[in-house]
């Protein structure tokens, strides 16, 4: 499953304070984050971040508040300048861009969706959706045509002449998404885009995003503090804590094999049956024949689907099929075992961590 890398972050450091370069040397010499804050009055925002984001994939960066995730996403379009490190977009380091190059990058190659929508309150929905194109200086007809098209695509046809304050939160964020899509950028940055919405609307919006992604194959960088959301959307999951990457990789693998007590504690709260998919718990057969199976299940079915199908019976085996061919075998006992977190989390590990 080799995908092209669209964005690559290499050894990225960000230190906030009056003299970040000097503080960086201290960090490289091994000064810890609390010590840096206490003795040197600098805040270590990000340390040694190395992440590759595949083209056409959804990369989710997850962490609690203060973990540096919003800082990290702003390094991709250089709304925040790094203290050290490289951000390669299509193989070119954006930190070396001139102001004009950077502006072009933001105008046509990388669009952004914000947590608080950040629509222009004095412009109509149509003008808001066409913002990126208008900024680029496209003709009015072109701007309005594209804006209309994308508004319809996100389900807001008929609201073109409304103003943002007349719309609900969910609808405003649809405008935000239409605005990002209308710029026709290959990469879309979403900074906690659904965090300000109530749970039902949030689910709707997640489905909308997945549905759009199935057609558009954008490179999406999604920030969230919600693990369920991360699991649902992510092709690649990066978990941040205190400005460094704790674990990254396939979300299913992180869920099954957390490598850090922090993540174990995190994933212990999640509804595993709904998140885990058959492919993560099956035994691959590598083409060998299968016998005495009870039925067939899809490779991307969730465990919840399979449990519903089996009616709670744990003695069955299922053949796992992908595109019509059997690829593995699913023992219901393995399935049930996978539902129990691998290691019981140390009670209160996360709470202790916050202090």
């Amino acid at each position, binding site marked *: 499953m080799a995908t092209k890398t669209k964005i690559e972050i290499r050894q990225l450091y960000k230190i906030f304070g009056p003299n970040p370069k000097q503080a960086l040397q201290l960090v490289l010499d091994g000064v810890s984050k609390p010590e840096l804050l206490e003795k040197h009055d600098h805040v270590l925002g990000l340390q040694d971040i190395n992440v590759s984001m595949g083209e056409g994939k959804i990369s989710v960066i997850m962490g609690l508040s203060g973990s540096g995730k919003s800082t990290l996403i702003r390094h991709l379009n250089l709304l925040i300048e790094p203290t050290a490190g490289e951000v390669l977009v299509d193989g070119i380091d954006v930190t070396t861009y001139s102001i004009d190059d950077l502006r072009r*990058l933001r105008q046509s190659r990388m669009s952004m969706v914000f947590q608080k929508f950040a*629509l222009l309150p004095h412009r109509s929905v149509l003008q808001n959706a066409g913002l990126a194109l208008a*900024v680029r200086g496209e003709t009015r007809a072109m701007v309005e045509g594209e804006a209309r098209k994308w508004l319809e695509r996100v389900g807001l046809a008929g609201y073109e002449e409304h103003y943002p304050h007349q719309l609900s939160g969910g609808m405003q964020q649809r405008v935000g998404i239409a605005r990002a899509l209308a710029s026709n950028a290959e990469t879309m940055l979403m900074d906690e885009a659904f965090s300000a919405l109530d749970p039902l609307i949030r689910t709707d919006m997640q489905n909308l995003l997945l549905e759009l992604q199935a057609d558009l194959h954008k490179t999406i960088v999604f920030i969230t503090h919600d693990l369920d959301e991360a699991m649902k959307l992510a092709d690649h999951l990066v978990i941040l804590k205190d400005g460094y990457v704790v674990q990254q990789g396939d979300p299913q693998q992180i869920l099954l094999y957390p490598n850090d007590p922090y993540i174990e504690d995190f994933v212990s709260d999640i509804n595993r049956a709904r998140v885990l998919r058959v492919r993560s718990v099956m035994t691959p057969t590598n083409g060998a024949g299968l016998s005495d199976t009870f039925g067939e299940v899809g490779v991307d079915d969730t465990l919840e689907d399979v449990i519903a199908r089996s009616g709670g019976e744990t003695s069955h085996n299922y053949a796992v099929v992908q595109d019509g061919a059997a690829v593995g075998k699913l023992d219901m006992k393995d399935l049930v075992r996978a539902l129990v977190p691998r290691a019981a989390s140390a009670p209160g590990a996360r709470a202790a961590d916050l202090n």
Partner: protein
Amino acid sequence: MGYYDGVFDALGLRDWCDADKVQGPMSMAELMARVRGGAVENNWWDIPFPSLDNLHASCQAIGRTREMTSAVEQGFLDIKDSLKFVLDPLTQPLSWLLDGSIFVFGQTPWWIIIPLMLLASFYVSRSVGITVFVALSFGFLGFIDHYGFAIQTLSIIFVCTVLCVLIGVPIGIAMSKSDTFQRMTIPVLDMLQTLPSFVYLIPLIFLFSVTESKLYGIAIILYAIVPVIRLTDLGIRLVDKDVIEAANAFGMTPGQKLFKVEIPLALPTIMAGVNQTIMMALAMVVIASLVSAPGLGELVLRGIRNLELGVGLVSGFCIVLLAVILDRVSKASLARIDGAQRH
């Protein structure tokens, strides 16, 4: 001989003090003291404050307060000519503008001006009630023969407010963009706002002839420009940071950001500043009648000078009427802009 003689003797400054001892004109206090006679008593209760005058009594080399004020005056007179050489041509257009506007407003017949005013107030406020109020007020002003004075006052306010906005908004924008510039400007604005309005007139009278309209024009503009500058700065600084970030994230140039995001979003605050500026211009135009500003202020002044109680009271009431009109119309337009972009 003064109370502080001993001090100068002790410091060994007696020679310096008496070096150029001249018998200058005496101040009244000195004369009184001399007439009353008697030596200075070293009574601790009556220790005089070591002021210029009291020190002078002991040491002639130290000047008296009146010498200090005349030195200030002399200093001002010394730079006056060069200052005037620079400022006079610079401010000349202001005179033309004020005279021109008073002439145009005054010469156009009332049956054109009043309907135009009503149209303008309806266009700005979009309120029938306010337009009717303006119509009734102008009817009243005309009926008691104060229409001509009111129009002069209005045309001065009009010119000064437009200039305040043209100068003040860019200054406010510059302040919002640069913290250093803001720190430099705020003390000046504070001074302009706290200086008693009469004090403005003093250096201006020296610089320009009292017959020139720019004299009161400058006084009004200096006094009234402060709120529009302050509120433009505030309005732009208060624009939602998230929206600014979005503007940056979509690659807006600084110019696009200013004209498409910041100014439109700051407009309600800027308009509140314009409303304040109009009201302050009205306040100043009355005081400026002291330096020959025409209009209703002239009548108030006549009321005071000639003790014509009725003239003063009626014109005072007309000023209140104008103030209410200007305030209502500009507030209504402010409310309209505010309502259009509430979020």
